[in-house]
């Protein structure tokens, strides 16, 4: 590893000067207001709105094959970036705490919980969502991914809310080599909760795709 005498060169500080300005402006605002009013302003989101205006950082990330250049607050999760800014609403927000798996997407081929991933940490990555799974989705040869077809055939859902996460997780489960038996599938799919209880059909769908031997 190259030793650098100026650690600042190895530390990317996006928009540090604007942050500095924000701090100064916050201090000025605090002076102009009575302390309780200043605290109240923060509580009502006033200061956060200023923060939002100043704390936009640039991010480049490839989503379903398309390079996206966006400007986001550092606290935006990958899940909120997908849904709120890019309007890819196939990825669902369930618990928002990494407990249900509804937000499962692939980052550089690995399944992850988008709700616990800060979008800023995906700089330069390739993200695949449920919208990116089918092939040629605008052409005459458009077809669903084998896992999507299997979920339909085996009725692997009821309300459908967990389904995008289940399917993204299921595809990864086979690619990882963790779908050799129904028992193994159940263990390696335990991060995806289905409140309707379609588990038996989900396992059948995954086993069929696995045993069908098609490339997923």
């Amino acid at each position, binding site marked *: 590893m190259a030793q650098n005498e100026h650690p600042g060169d190895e530390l990317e500080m996006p928009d540090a000067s604007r942050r500095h300005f924000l701090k100064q402006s916050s201090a000025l605002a605090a002076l102009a207001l009575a302390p309780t009013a200043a605290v109240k302003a923060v509580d009502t989101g006033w200061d956060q709105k200023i923060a939002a205006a100043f704390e936009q*950082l640039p991010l480049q990330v490839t989503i379903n094959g398309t390079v996206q250049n966006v400007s986001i607050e*550092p606290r935006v999760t990958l899940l909120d970036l997908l849904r709120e800014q890019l309007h890819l609403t196939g990825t669902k927000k369930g618990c928002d705490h990494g407990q249900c798996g509804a937000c499962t997407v692939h980052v550089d081929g690995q399944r992850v919980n988008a709700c616990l991933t*800060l979008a800023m940490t995906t700089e330069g990555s390739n993200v695949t969502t449920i919208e990116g799974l089918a092939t040629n989705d605008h052409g005459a040869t458009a077809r669903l991914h084998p896992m999507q077809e299997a979920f339909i055939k085996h009725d692997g859902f009821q309300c459908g809310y967990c389904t995008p996460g289940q399917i993204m997780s299921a595809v990864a489960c086979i690619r990882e080599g963790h779908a050799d038996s129904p028992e193994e599938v159940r263990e390696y799919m335990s991060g995806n909760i289905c409140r309707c209880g379609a588990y038996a059909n989900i396992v059948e769908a995954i086993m069929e795709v696995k045993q069908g031997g098609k490339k997923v």
Partner: protein
Amino acid sequence: MNPFQFTRATTPKAAISAITKESGTYFLAGGTNLIDLMKREVIIPERLVDINKLPLATIEKTASGLRIGAMAKNSAVADHELVKKHFPLLSMALNAGASAQLRNMATVGGNLMQRTRCSYFYDTSMPCNKRGPVQAGPDKGKPNGPSGCGAIGGFNRMHAIFGSSSKCIAVHPSDMCIALAALDATVNVSGPKGDRRIPFSEFHRLPGELPQKDNTLLPGELILSVDLPTNRFADHSHYLKIRDRASYAFALVSVGVGLDMKGGMIQDVRLAMGGVAHKPWRLFEAEQFLKGKEATEVNFKQAAALAMKDAKGYGENDFKLTLAPNSIIDALKTATKTA
């Protein structure tokens, strides 16, 4: 989530210098625990230093064993051929933790740093001595919620039976760390005052009077890697995890065992438990007792009784006083058989 400043470090040196400069700064690795805690405002950082680009994810053979980089993902470690072959206990413990998605995100260093899942710690309207002061924003320096221990005399089904204090009875949540404790790991860290090696048993601490402190890291220190010494436990290792559902739940009680067997005799043994203390709980006395003895149920029962000598229940978790020794015996029996 509260706003914070975001920086990205590309060398350990830069990361350490960034965290030393400003208070309320946290390293961000996999984020599976920190982002969750930030959403619940249990932790409110002033600044995050993203360390995901640090070149610390290598898993490599060393002269004395194996070195696992701090940024190696849990899934990468669990599926690594050298880990599966020579340290199967670590692989088993990792796969018993969290979900496949979380294991793809969570790092080895982050796993060591994860906080308790005590529900009082997580709820800032409830008393807790562990949360400490608010780190950023208008309430900086003020206590983050009421002090005291809500779990003592409260809902304490998940809580500690060993090493607790009147200030805190929370447990360390990690499965991976139980294996690392049993396997005599060493943690390599780097900080503003240089590098040092911390034996695993000295990395995490008991709550005592300072439950805010989970470990013995000094301010600004960054975990670089974990070393595992070569051992003879690979043929007789087992990780037993008892939980409320079959998968994806924290341990009520877990036991990590490594046996070095010759015939029916135990040449050497390592035993550690999870879900029972503020730190990964090594069963030194039970190990000492079993060394050189026959692998029989009678001996396993005596070892378990020795391990439970100082155990103390808090009401709702009294069942652990029976579950823990039974789990020790069960894990030892299974480890005897595996080959």
